[in-house]
């Protein structure tokens, strides 16, 4: 067991299981390559361990009681590629995400989520290789260890469906993996990758609030920079940093519906321009409270562009902000980082080259680009 956070909580709690599979023992580049899985065209990955660790770090460094259900446990499983020397995440201290160890961790996580009367929040995060058959199949680090490689993988869709029987009322599943159709999945269109738990006909569902996001559409890839955090995980972290937050009674909460509706744009801004995440949500729920007002980028200038150089630019936040003026005139737009809010943007021209202009704008997303039309 690799519980990197074990914080017993009385009452409702949040439990997370985080899996990052970068090292695949039996794929090309692994320590024990097996010829039987060469045909999949898969290799070692450097992004998943960094992505999983980044997400786990966010969880463990977050303020435990700012979660709608206080954060209780985080279990982290990581494998790194043999030649991934730069990864200094002390991965050796974590359990390796083999099929069996993922199963063991999942079963323990299930029990933690299931306990405590049913008001818990369950978070499942996976980053690694994935394939698409009828369902999405996620590959464990020992994929290919036996003649039937599917035994070292698991069926995500069935697993997700089965988990609805868990008593955790808020269930969050985040899957950062490809969904390509490879030749072997064509030849075996319904590979018998066992689910981590099979859905049952008579299972009673307890999930009240669902947030399930697959990082990319079926048949498509998910991307990340080599030796960097994947684009989807960057987008997730941005969402929890405030880009998917809304003000409720003076408190900024990250909400499930806002994560679902904004993750696509955040993913695009992070660099995953070719990915289209697929989200499934149920009744919205607040997840995590920010400790203040989130800040965003604001860029503004004038149109026509030559007016920017002659303008004195200023902004005022409605409500409680003093008027802020750009220290000196410049030809390029003014780039700022400001708290979310409504601002009055102004451009004045002391030399009378253009007419003065002003415009109220809202700043509430990651990037805000505005222009003041002047004549």
């Amino acid at each position, binding site marked *: 067991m690799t519980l990197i956070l074990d914080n017993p909580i009385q009452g409702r709690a949040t439990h997370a299981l985080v899996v990052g599979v970068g090292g695949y023992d039996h794929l090309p580049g692994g320590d024990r390559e097996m010829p039987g899985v060469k045909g999949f065209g898969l290799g070692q990955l450097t992004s998943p361990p960094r992505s999983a660790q980044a997400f786990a770090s966010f969880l463990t460094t977050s303020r435990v009681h700012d979660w709608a259900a206080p954060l209780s446990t985080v279990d982290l499983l990581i494998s790194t590629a043999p030649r991934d020397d730069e990864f200094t995440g002390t991965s050796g201290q974590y359990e390796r995400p083999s099929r069996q160890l993922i199963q063991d961790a999942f079963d323990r996580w299930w029990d933690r989520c299931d306990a405590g009367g049913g008001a818990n929040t369950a978070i499942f995060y996976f980053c690694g290789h994935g394939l698409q*058959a*009828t369902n999405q199949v996620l590959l464990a680090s020992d994929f290919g260890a036996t003649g039937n490689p599917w035994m070292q993988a698991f069926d995500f*869709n*069935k697993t997700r*469906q089965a988990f609805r029987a868990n008593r955790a009322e808020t269930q969050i599943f985040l899957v950062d993996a490809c969904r390509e*159709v490879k030749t072997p999945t*064509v030849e075996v*269109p*319904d590979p018998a990758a066992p689910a981590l738990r099979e*859905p*049952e*006909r*008579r*299972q*009673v*569902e307890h999930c009240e609030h669902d947030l399930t996001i697959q990082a990319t*559409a*079926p*048949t498509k890839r998910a991307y990340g920079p080599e030796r960097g955090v994947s684009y989807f995980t960057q987008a997730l972290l941005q969402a929890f940093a405030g880009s998917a937050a*809304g*003000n*409720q*009674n*003076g408190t900024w909460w990250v909400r499930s*519906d806002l994560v*679902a*509706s904004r993750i*696509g744009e955040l993913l695009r801004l992070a660099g995953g*321009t*070719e990915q*289209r995440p*697929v*989200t*499934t*949500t*149920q*009744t*919205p729920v607040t997840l995590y409270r920010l400790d203040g007002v989130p800040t965003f980028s604001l860029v503004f200038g004038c149109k026509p562009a030559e007016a920017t150089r002659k303008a004195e630019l200023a902004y005022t936040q*409605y*409500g409680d902000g003093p008027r802020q003026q750009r220290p000196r005139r410049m030809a390029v737009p003014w780039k700022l980082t400001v708290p*979310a*809010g*409504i*601002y009055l943007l102004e451009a004045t021209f002391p030399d009378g080259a253009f007419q003065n202009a002003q*415009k*109220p*704008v*809202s700043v*509430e997303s990651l990037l805000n680009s505005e222009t003041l039309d002047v004549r």
Partner: protein
Amino acid sequence: MSAQLDIQVAESRPLETGRIPVLVSVLNSELETVVGPVPFVPSEGTAIQVDPGIYVVHLDTPSGQRLSKAVDARESPNQLVSFDLHALSGHEALEKTALLKPFDSQEQSPGLDAAGFRSAWIRLWKRQTSGQWLLSPFTPLATDHNRDGVRYDFSLPMFPHTLQIGGPQTKWRLFALPVQESVTVTIAPDHARHGEVITTAITGNDVAESLLGYLGLGLTAHAEALWPMAEDLLQHKFRDPIGAAVGGYFLLRLRRLGRLREWAANLADNFGWLPDGAIIDGWLHLHMARQNNDDDEYTLVRDRFLDAASRGLPLYTEGLRLLVDGLTLFADSAEVRNALEGVRRYADCVDWAATTVTFRGHDPDRPDMVPQLGVPDSTAGMVFLQNLSLADIVQAGFLAPGTTVQLRGTGVEGVITPNGELQLDTGQTYSDPDAAAAEMLTTTAPQIRWHDWTVGASKTLAMIADEARSTSIQAEPSDPIERLGLAALTIWTLKRAGITRVRDVTRSYDRLGSVNGVGQRSITEITRALAASDLSPTTSPPDLTMSQSNLPDQPADLARRDETLAVNSHVRTVELKADGSVVLTVHVFSFGAGRSVEISGYITQNSGAFAPFSTNQSVPAPVAGVSSVTVNVPAMGLNPGEDVEVITRVAEAQIWPTVLRAEVAEQNVKATWRSKNDIPAVHEQLESRSGDRPTPAAAESPIPASGSQLRGSSVTVKGLQQGTKYHITVEVASDEPWSTNQ
């Protein structure tokens, strides 16, 4: 004192978008939501009362676009907040689509004008009450073409319809259409994937479409806000079952089972052509069964899922997902496993991100994970999407070979060649008129387009291209596949002289039509078509460039032919499985191992059983000199005690249909049919494509067949020489008069 925010929306086409509900929210200066989301329709706008202050107004569209306006309502009691929908798509015709569905317009992109979409095509399939799919004439009420998207407006009767799109660089995909009086289909370029398109279909039920949009975006709070307006959908399910199904999926998603219980069974029971109703009702009862642990309820659920699977594909992707998941839960019986197997054929090929069921495949009955590219064998009912090649325009018959064209204002002339190229006076040929014009004018000016080439006084190539992409291609009388059908039926009918009932033949031909897309015809029409056709009276093998060893079975070459003489592919065995399905073992000759061949044809029995089959397979390596492939045919009601006849065609085959005309019979011969004269028209067509002329016959001497009288279903001809033209005369004698008047 309070202030009023007057929300108004500017639209290009208020009649189209004015009744589509959108949602508006008002946030205070702390960005805290103070009002909303509130639904309203653009044509009416809405007024929202607030305290004086600074506000942000959000207008969220069902397509996922957010339009925002900050307003200062501290001084003036009335503030006009105006939103403009024009910018969503940049095109009036696409505004409705951009309001309801995610839409990506990129100014710098050539869009559908890109080379990747050249000669991309589209065609419409309709499912018959028998469950079979037929190609339907592509006759939209209105069409609008531009590079950011092509729009078609349909009015579809209450039968499932599927659109198919493909092209030389566009992977074939089929997507289910909602059937309604008003359906707007948009095909837009997928800027992230070369040659690929994004397809959307919108019904005239604005509220249902809006609800669907917010649900698809995961904006459940918005969908819930819209629900009071959408609940009316349920009241009108008999008028609009599609809208009611959308409401059903919404209630299932939010687990509002109480509301669903009131009407889901009615939707399932009264609209048998719509599997979605049975799926929704099945899941409703599954939730109820789980809550009550009720065994009877579980039985009902299982039956509902089986019923849904038997109805065909659901309209919505969410329904397909629910059907797969539902059947999986009951897969402990063979019946359910069979149903699941049938659904999975599609599920493996489905685009799970699409709203309506969208899958890769050859036709609605043949999903295929392997992407298909190119143009279908039969162009019947097809239209081109946007950007065409000259060759395809010529091949589709919109421009005749030999037509002279002039480059406007230059005196340069050219002639359209049979294979669709432009041959200039200089002798040079060009496949692209743009390139030809640029070459002759020694310029690469981008304004040079097809409209610079004129045909006659005023018609331009661009106008012909417009016609080609707006006109559904008619089934060509010379279509070799149709000719195969005619010929096969002719022979079949002759062989059944006096036995076959007219309606059997008609029904068979209808089924044949469903495969080949040639539509329905009665036997009378077939006969008339035969009489009017210019098909050759001879049954000579084609004497073109194709080698004799490549020739396929003739249509009359039935399953029981003598194996030892088989140089052509044939059916070795036919097995009837316990579930009624049929397995054919076909021996494929003359095609190298690894080559992809299309095997198609028909299985018949005297009692009237008839089933078409068609499959694409790679030829396996021969074993003992024989490459054997297996063809599976769904249950078709074969009678185990009766002979079976199989008519087989192998792709890349040359087909030579024969028409025989009744003649005066000689003494002691009851009736004689003699083939018409001259070279088959199908040869002419193929020659014009290949540019080769037939080789004259080297010799003409009779070769005896295996018997002077044709008995059973086959005749053997030995000693044929490659490259030699043969005339085969068939005389058919029967104890019964052959008539079509029964």
